[in-house]
């Protein structure tokens, strides 16, 4: 197996009048680890989709190993040894590791001789930098293991040029380091070449040889990673756009607002317990819950929103028992921003205006809804929070992810807020949306709200919080003030081996 080099020449992709990719030429030498940086919407995905044959470029050509290659569809790309690992897993959850690998092959025999296949798979695994249990259903694997399996699958299929689309977004820092250093070693051995889409400068500096930066569909810079600093890369990526800086911390910590004692509940699989004891969130502080997804954070969120019953334990808000009813949430000024707000905090087909009215429609009017008031409120909030929508009567599902997030945040942060419970607020959003949303959260804290934030993004936790907890296997295993916390030990606790 030897690595192949790929080069794009003047790749251009237009969708109608919109130019998603403009005359982009990048070169990935055989055996190199190349990083592709850019904000959301900068054209990174368009570029790799053109390379993989999902899109037909409007203009430009592609060279594979120095020869012109016409990639008409993903199959043609696969035939030339090009493979892609997607941001979202393409594994089949209920199939085992072995079954997932075998079925991904083009030439699966009609009757599968599992004994022979297993021997082959074991031999293949033995030659790989990381091992996985062949007989486990993929659904039971941790996110890091799934990501490794995605990569193994590409190698198993004999791909020698791998495109990785934000491969570490679901991994712990330890897992990310492990996976990327293996990829780097494979590159150095000349087995594969890698093109990695990423947001994280740290990974670029630590693992990539070269970098290309896209902005608004254009290649704006790049070169040897060794020659570029983080600031250079950020400047290339952002251009002259100004980021909203999170407000400085101010105010003092007040009395505890949210108290959880002896909480026990079953998790989504029904096999494991969630146990949370002695969790306190005070007024004027942000408490972050770090952890890899699937370790009980979503369940904790569901307990707090009232979506999941507790077997025992007590939740108190402002010293009084709390059962997550709407009346209690209203009287205590509790607000929520769950993950995937379009599904967990919106009625997707109802209008932006209606969705923004969910917190207030029943207190604004009497028996009859006051449409006028609802619309006026929506208009104001849409303007204040810069929600990009054609009209406030558009269904909220027509908005982009960042704008749904802004709309929900607008609803949840309007009026007085004493307790704000948030889960992964910035997942999949671009830089400007992220910094704006973080600034809003910080403002709420400074105005005296107690904030509990669950996030899989450790950088976010370190930036925003005053105190950090780590959840692993349904339990809080680590607690420290953010100022004193160190990333390495948080990472170890996230991985469950501290």
């Amino acid at each position: 197996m030897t690595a192949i080099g790929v080069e794009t020449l003047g790749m251009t992709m237009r969708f109608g009048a919109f130019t998603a990719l403009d005359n982009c030429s990048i070169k990935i030498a055989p055996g190199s680890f190349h990083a592709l940086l850019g904000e959301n919407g900068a054209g990174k995905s368009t570029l790799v989709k053109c390379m993989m044959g999902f899109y037909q470029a409007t203009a430009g050509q592609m060279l594979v190993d120095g020869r012109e290659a016409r990639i008409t569809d993903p199959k043609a790309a696969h035939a030339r040894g090009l493979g892609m690992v997607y941001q979202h897993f393409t594994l089949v959850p209920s199939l085992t590791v072995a079954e997932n690998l075998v079925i991904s092959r083009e030439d699966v025999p009609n009757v599968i001789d599992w004994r022979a296949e297993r021997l082959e798979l074991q031999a293949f695994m033995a030659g790989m930098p990381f091992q996985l249990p062949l007989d486990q259903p993929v659904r039971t694997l941790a996110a890091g293991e799934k990501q490794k399996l995605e990569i193994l699958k590409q190698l198993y299929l004999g791909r020698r040029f791998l495109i990785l689309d934000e491969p570490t977004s679901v991994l712990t820092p330890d897992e990310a380091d492990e996976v990327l250093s293996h990829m780097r070693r494979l590159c150095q051995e000349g087995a594969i070449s890698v093109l990695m889409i990423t947001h994280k400068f740290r990974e670029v500096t630590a693992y990539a040889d070269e970098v290309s930066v896209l902005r608004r569909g254009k290649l704006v810079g790049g070169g040897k990673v060794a020659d570029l600093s983080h600031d250079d890369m950020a400047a290339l990526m952002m251009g002259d756009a100004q980021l909203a800086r999170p407000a400085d911390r101010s105010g003092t910590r007040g009395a505890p607002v949210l108290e959880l004692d002896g909480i026990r509940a079953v998790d989504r699989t029904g096999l494991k317990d969630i146990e949370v004891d002695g969790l306190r969130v005070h007024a004027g502080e942000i408490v972050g819950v770090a952890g890899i997804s699937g370790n009980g954070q979503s369940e904790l969120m569901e307990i707090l929103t009232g979506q999941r019953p507790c077997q025992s334990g007590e939740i108190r808000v402002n010293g009084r028992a709390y059962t997550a009813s709407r009346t209690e949430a209203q009287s205590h000024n509790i607000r929520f921003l769950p993950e995937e707000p379009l599904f967990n905090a919106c009625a997707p087909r109802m209008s932006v205006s209606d969705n923004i009215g969910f917190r207030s429609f029943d207190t604004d009017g009497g028996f009859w809804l006051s449409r006028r008031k609802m619309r006026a409120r929506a208009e104001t909030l849409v303007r204040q929070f810069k929600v990009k929508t054609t009209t406030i009567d558009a269904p909220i599902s027509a908005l982009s992810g960042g704008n749904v997030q802004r709309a929900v945040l607008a609803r949840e942060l309007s009026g007085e807020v004493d307790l704000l419970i948030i889960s992964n607020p910035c997942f999949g959003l671009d830089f400007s949306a992220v910094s704006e949303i973080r600034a809003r959260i910080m403002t709420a804290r400074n105005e005296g709200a107690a904030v509990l934030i669950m996030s899989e993004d450790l950088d976010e936790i370190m930036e925003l919080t005053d105190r950090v907890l780590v959840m692993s296997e349904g339990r809080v295993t680590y607690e420290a003030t953010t100022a004193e916390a160190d990333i390495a030990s948080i990472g170890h606790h996230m991985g469950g081996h501290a």
Partner: protein
Amino acid sequence: MDTELGYSIIPLAILGGAIRVSTPFLFVSLGEALTERSGRINLGLEGTLVFGAMSGYAVAYLTNSPWLGVGAAMICGALFGLIHGVICSLPRVNDIAVGIAMMILGMGLAFYFGKPYVQPVAPDLPAIGFGWWSDIPQVRAALEVNVLFLIGAVLAVVLWWMLRSTRIGLILRVVGDSTDAARAMGLRPAVVRTCATAVGGAFAGVGGAYLSLYYPGSWNEGISSGQGLMAVALVIFARWNPLACFGAALLFGGAGALGPVLQSVGISEGYYLFFAAPYVLTLGVLIATSSPTRAMTGAPGELSITK
């Protein structure tokens, strides 16, 4: 009847009854398991079952061959499945709604075309006597096992093996579990699902032929008492596993046999209640296997009822 023997025969009679009553459950549930494994639910199998019963009976009567009847029921069932599958492949069509429409259509067509066949007598399917070792007529009667039941049992094992060790089986599971993954592999989920629904329909048709050609063994409008719908619950209970479907079908069959058996040994108190046993069991099973907080394990990821 000798009461002594009468009570001791109950377990055996229930076993015999279970085998007799379970066959349609077995075929419908295997068909439904196959369809659901591909990520679609076909609630129309009740209609397919009744139409299969009618067409099987009619063809068996006209050709004087019960096996041709079974074949006809199979083809009709496959057609019904195909129609369901094709309609559901259109954008924005709900498989449950189509299933209910197909159920009513199937029953309506069966009653319409079946009118002339209520009176005539068609030949029965053959059975094998496993009770030759006994002199007691009740034992021999209980151990008369129909060939279709044996075919169904073999089919359950074959399906289980197929899902595990063949390309088709794996493709079916991929499609049922993740449309995205299937597309990424270059599979066409709609085609796979349509085929799975057609084959599932064929199985249900055979189940119907058993009803009219063996037990109870005649064609009338009340021939199915909801077996096609109960089989859907049964598949959930069996966790989409063909081998478990076999066990679950026997259990439901046993519950269905309870009423007739108790009646035959002279217990008549609360007798209607025992006839309700399969329905109560369905309800019980659905409640016992449901949970508001737990995701169902083993459920195909693309199934609309469990999503």
